[in-house]
């Protein structure tokens, strides 16, 4: 019952934040220098033409009416029209989502797969060479700009040794799934997919690998010194079980919190990683639309990014609650 109420409350809060996101994005058009009419009207347009354009865009209506229509349109899935691309914004933006999600998920998988074991090993072998190595790695990882790391990997692993593709997304994860049932050879498709995604995923994931390694190490050190660990050891539990079942579980609680907070960093990092690897996702669309002053598309991207942040954070909260049964649902 408590869980139901907790869910309801969090979802309501999430909806409010999304509403805030939309309002901020709506407001963006008013801090833009120049009216959208200038972008559309010919240079020698008469006052009548300009008024006609304003009327067509609904710009001659009072602000609250415009805002109302904006919300209604969004509810119907209409994010406006990109005059520069000559396309509906919703289609344009949604088409880019899978590439960014694929990149973000791959980076997260890389980060979690490396960092948690590394953090645990580092904590259990404190002040041994492996601990120093992990500490230096995580210090470097949080201090290295991901775009530079990407370029350095392109330089060595793609340009010099030709192991990976330098850029692009020739094969997506969808193609890998299709090759299971389709006529394309499965192994070849997987290998080619890996040659595209590995470098961007490492470039984006390194910061998180480093951050989570640090958090896991310090958390484990805390937990391993606590009474319940001594009790577990005293009753003869195997050390692996003590470490991974008891201590690690408690360590993960703060790790998950910080990961949730850092999610924005992951999405922001994706923007620049995409720029380095010419990855056809939301990030490249954001940069493109700013460079060509395509505000409707930029607004669409911002709404999708803000909303996905809220949704994933909701998921993180639920995960948090399931990791720590003491969390009070209110």
């Amino acid at each position: 019952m408590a869980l139901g109420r907790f869910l309801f409350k969090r979802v309501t809060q999430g909806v409010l934040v999304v509403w805030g996101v939309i309002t901020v994005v709506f407001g963006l058009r008013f801090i833009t220098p120049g009216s959208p009419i200038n972008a559309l009207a010919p240079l020698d347009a008469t006052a009548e033409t300009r008024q006609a354009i304003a009327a067509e865009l609904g710009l001659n209506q009072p602000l609250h009416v415009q805002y109302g229509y904006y919300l209604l349109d969004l509810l119907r899935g209409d994010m406006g029209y990109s005059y520069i691309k000559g396309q509906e914004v919703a289609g344009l933006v949604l088409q880019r989502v899978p590439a960014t999600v694929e990149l973000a998920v791959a980076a997260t998988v890389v980060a979690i797969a490396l960092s948690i074991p590394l953090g645990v090993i580092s904590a259990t072998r404190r002040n041994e060479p492996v601990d120093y190595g992990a500490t230096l790695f995580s210090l470097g990882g949080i201090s290295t700009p991901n775009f530079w790391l990407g370029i350095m990997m392109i330089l060595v692993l793609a340009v010099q040794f030709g192991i990976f593709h330098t850029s692009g997304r020739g094969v997506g994860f969808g193609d890998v799934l299709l090759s299971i049932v389709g006529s394309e050879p499965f192994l070849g498709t997987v290998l080619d997919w890996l040659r595209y995604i590995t470098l961007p995923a490492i470039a984006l994931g390194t910061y998180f690998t480093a951050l989570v390694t640090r958090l896991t190490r310090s958390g484990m050190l805390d937990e391993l010194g606590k009474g319940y660990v001594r009790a577990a050891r005293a009753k003869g539990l195997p050390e692996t079980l003590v470490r991974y079942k008891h201590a690690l579980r408690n360590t993960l609680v703060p790790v998950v919190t910080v990961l949730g907070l850092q999610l924005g960093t992951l999405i922001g990092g994706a923007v620049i990683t995409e720029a380095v690897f010419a990855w056809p996702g939301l990030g490249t669309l954001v940069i493109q639309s700013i460079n060509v002053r395509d505000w409707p598309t930029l607004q669409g991207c911002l709404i999708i990014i803000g909303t996905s942040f809220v949704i994933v954070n909701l998921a993180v909260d639920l995960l948090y609650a399931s990791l720590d049964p003491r969390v009070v649902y209110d």
Partner: protein
Amino acid sequence: MVSPRVLRNLKREFKRSALAKTGLVLVVVVVTVAIFAPFVAPHNPTAQDLDNRRQPPLGFSRTVETTSSEMVNGSIQLVERTEHVNATAAHPLGTDSLGRDMLSRVIYGARTSLLVGVLGTLLAAILGVSVGLSAGYYRGRVDDALMRFADVSLAFPSLVLAVALIGLWGRAAVPVPDPFVVFGLAPGMPATFTLPGTVIVVVGLVNWVWFARVARGEALSIREEEYIKAARAIGASDGRIIWRHVLPNATTPILVLGTIQIAAIILLESALSFLGFSGTTLSWGFDIAQGRDYLATSWWISTMPGLAIVVAVVGINLLGDLLRDALDPGIEGEGGL
């Protein structure tokens, strides 16, 4: 503001930790180099030398394959030649695609990064701390409104928001006269230094929320202390209580966060100038971007400024770790890239 106990802890931690000492050395080096750039830099960082383009750094050479038509035995033939461009001591880190000295560019780049890092953090701290302290002190509706607004802010990644704001506002660059050059102490160096104004404002605006969260948390607990009640009892105004009693007791975690934020903002600035949103061309991120076009033949153009970023940020992060260990306020979240 900082108690003697805190200073003692700081000294003890510093003596104990080799990493902290390394951090201090790195930061001192970067700051000194940035301030005295006109004296430290061997060349004017913007002076082009087209005869010495893309010269490799010391210890390396670059092979150039040229094809030209020449008279050989009375007939015109295509001749292929392989030439080696060697490093010279004049350009220890090599030169870029316009023959500008990479070492001097890296040295001047430190100015941009540190100025944006420090000024951006200050702006974020002033905004965030004043909003956070008032929210935590007054609680109630002010607090609710702030926290909801902070939630909305957090939903936009700093980089995305910064890029969007700069895209909308343009890239203002403020030329600041370089005092050393103005007084004739460093002839031949650029007379003005370009401060990326919009970038500073924008990084402050996108990172204030971290300060607001920390300051609010502190204010929430400080407001329950006896001395606050005492101050209220003798009739001190809210403004005075916040300024004289709440703020001084909240400085420690704000300082720790501030250090981490300088590092985060330096990374953010490098990303912005890499994407071409900076407004200055003397910046580590900008040079990394211009080196991308020559990655296959002249790797050093992108590599050197990146190493400089890593050195600066590692140094600041090490100092941040030292502060955190000595003061241990338990700060959540780091922000930035």
